[in-house]
């Protein structure tokens, strides 16, 4: 797609904007394809050539294994880069407008910075700081600058003054009962959070947008059945169902991510459906239909982009829900105990709350801040992306 568009309408090269041939791909799609093919090749190589226990990069001398979940995660990251970040760069005028609107909400700007920190730490952190090892000698070390009664810590890693054990920079946020550093666990938890957020959201958006558009376009009994299903899913006590399924099949992270994504898209489907219905009444859609555009093209080029604002605001509500559900299930002891998610750290520190509150407080506060940040950002995005709603509310 053209990055410098002419400012005047009559100078627009429509061939270039709309794509000349049937099979011409946009820059975004090309980029996604070019990056996804090596990823798929690596996944296929990992799955077909290497046996299960060989780490993925062993043939080139690196002892790095890539679990299946990470392929999914990488793919959703690529999608995010090519269909959220790149379009913002391609349309600088619109991006500036959104940013101007967004900036008016101060807490939202701060929240966006925090979410950026979560994103970067989650991507880079687990690569730099590996998951901490157990060290029973260093259990219940206090955070740096704080002190606890030395009787509570097995052996104090820092100085002991008057029977009080002081924290060290070796464990900036103290340690757990097993002597794992809370800070290192937390950083790994950022990575888990990103995976939950990205993959579950991807599943929910794909399902919600497809059901919404199919329902609106097919009409009749298809619409009726799909929307009735959406009703049922809406009145289903989901947490209880997760509890039952995860208890039966074991709390692996990928299962949880799959469940969260698969049973949370009903709101999105409703939005997209009503948007698709209202759009199909618009004059320009009638014009496009008359000039022979296929239903798929109308959906792809007009319905989905037009419902993007509601999809994005819905995502900012979905992700906190996912994080909360993971934390709740972990707290009940049903999460994946092999990963250091924030919920797992909270669950692990609960028994030691009275004398080692940092184990629960650190991940709890981070979880709280992240959910809060999503709420503020969602609020500001709603105003920025959907000025009609804002105007209505302010009137």
């Amino acid at each position, binding site marked *: 797609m053209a990055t410098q568009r002419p400012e005047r309408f009559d100078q627009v090269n429509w061939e270039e904007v709309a794509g000349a041939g049937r099979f011409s791909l946009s820059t975004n799609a090309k980029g996604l394809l070019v990056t996804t093919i090596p990823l798929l090749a690596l996944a296929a190589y990992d799955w077909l050539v290497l046996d299960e226990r060989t780490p993925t990069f062993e043939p080139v001398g690196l002892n790095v294994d890539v679990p299946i979940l990470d392929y999914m995660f990488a793919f959703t990251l690529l999608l995010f880069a090519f269909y959220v970040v790149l379009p913002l760069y391609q349309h600088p005028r619109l991006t500036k407008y959104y940013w101007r609107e967004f900036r008016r909400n101060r807490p939202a700007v701060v929240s966006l910075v925090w979410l950026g920190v979560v994103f970067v730490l989650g991507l880079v952190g687990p690569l730099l700081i590996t998951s901490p090892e157990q060290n029973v000698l260093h259990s219940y070390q206090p955070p740096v600058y704080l002190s606890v009664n030395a009787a509570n810590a097995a052996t104090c890693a820092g100085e002991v003054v008057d029977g009080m054990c002081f924290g060290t920079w070796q464990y900036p946020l103290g340690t757990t009962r097993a002597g794992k550093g809370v800070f290192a666990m937390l950083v790994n938890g950022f990575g888990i959070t990103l995976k939950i957020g990205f993959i579950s959201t991807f599943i929910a958006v794909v399902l919600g947008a497809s059901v919404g558009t199919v329902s609106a376009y097919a009409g009749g009994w298809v619409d009726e059945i799909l929307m009735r299903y959406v*009703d*049922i899913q*809406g*009145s*289903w*006590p*989901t*947490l*209880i169902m997760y*509890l*039952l*399924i995860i*208890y*039966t*099949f074991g709390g692996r992270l990928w299962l949880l991510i799959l469940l969260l994504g698969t049973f949370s898209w009903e709101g999105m489907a409703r939005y997209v459906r009503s948007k698709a219905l209202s759009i199909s009444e618009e004059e320009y859609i009638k014009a496009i239909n008359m000039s022979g555009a296929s239903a798929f093209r109308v959906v792809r080029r007009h319905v989905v982009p037009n419902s993007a604002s509601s999809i994005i605001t819905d995502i900012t509500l979905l992700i*906190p829900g996912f994080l*909360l*559900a993971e*934390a*709740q299930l972990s*707290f*009940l002891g049903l999460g994946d105990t092999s990963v250091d998610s924030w919920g797992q750290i*909270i669950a692990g520190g*609960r028994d030691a*709350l*009275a004398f080692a*509150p940092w184990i*629960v*407080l650190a991940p*709890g506060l981070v*979880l*709280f801040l992240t*959910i*809060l940040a999503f*709420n*503020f950002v969602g609020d500001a995005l709603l105003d920025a992306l959907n000025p009609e709603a804002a105007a*209505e*509310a*302010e*009137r």
Partner: protein
Amino acid sequence: MGFTRYVTARVAWAGVVTFIIMTVTFVFIAFAPNPEVKRAATQAALQGGDPTEAVERVRELRGLDQPLHVRYIDYVTSIATLQWGWSTMRSQPVTAALVEALFYTAQYSVPWTLLTITIGPLVGLYSSANKYSWRDHVATGFAFFGYAIPNFFFAIILLLVFGVWLEWVPVIYRTTVPVFSVENAIQLVLPVFVLVTGSIGGLMRVSRNESSEYMNADFVKTARAKGVSPLRAYALHILRPTMVPLSTTMVGQLLLLFAGSSLLIEVVFSIPGLGRLLFEATIAQDTNLVLGSILVFVLVAVIGNLLQDITYTVLDPRISYDDR
């Protein structure tokens, strides 16, 4: 379609939803590995018996050797006739266990619901009447705080501060105290407080945004010009249209919290209510009790949604019954 017909159709649909959800649950449990059978096999193997024979015996005893459709019909009739079976975990009929648990759940749910539906809209209205003042900012900040802090985390922290450090409230829930007593009120303060802060935020936001739409509406201006007192203007002219969209959020929010947070809150505060019963039944793999408590949660959700739709049409006469 008239109102009566709409309500009838809606009630019928609620019945269908319950039926579908319970069928799916049944199919799920029927195909999931049965713990009792596994336990019997292990036991037989340990005692030197024949595991296959033991499995057969348990399956016969539990009626699992019958074909699926026979078991399904059995299951549906027993649900309809309120014979929900015997709970092995509690050694009492499932219905009795549920009624007992409901007694404790109601003790915190009733004050929580009442407080939420009175305080939420009122604070939202107050907020929008004083829009962009410091009071509005405080209320908004509180709303966001309550909405964003994970309920169970908040509960743990409060229990640590007020139960362990300050010792103002008991750490362990006591079931022996009478319902209407000071001791009971004290031990229920924290759970109710946590749940109210969690559920009030969304309601406050919606009622603030919706009522600010009507603050300067023509009909409110007319009412004020005619000399209607401010209180009456707020209560009858602004609050009433606000309640229409609010009622949807209200029921939805409360239901979501009821199914999710009440479980966690009961686990944290060790209240022997419905949520904990379901959780413990799942852990103990007491199939009858799991099904029974799930049915209770499903019924609450379905009835809540039903009431929400009906109130919606009662409050807003413009909504046509045809396009729901």
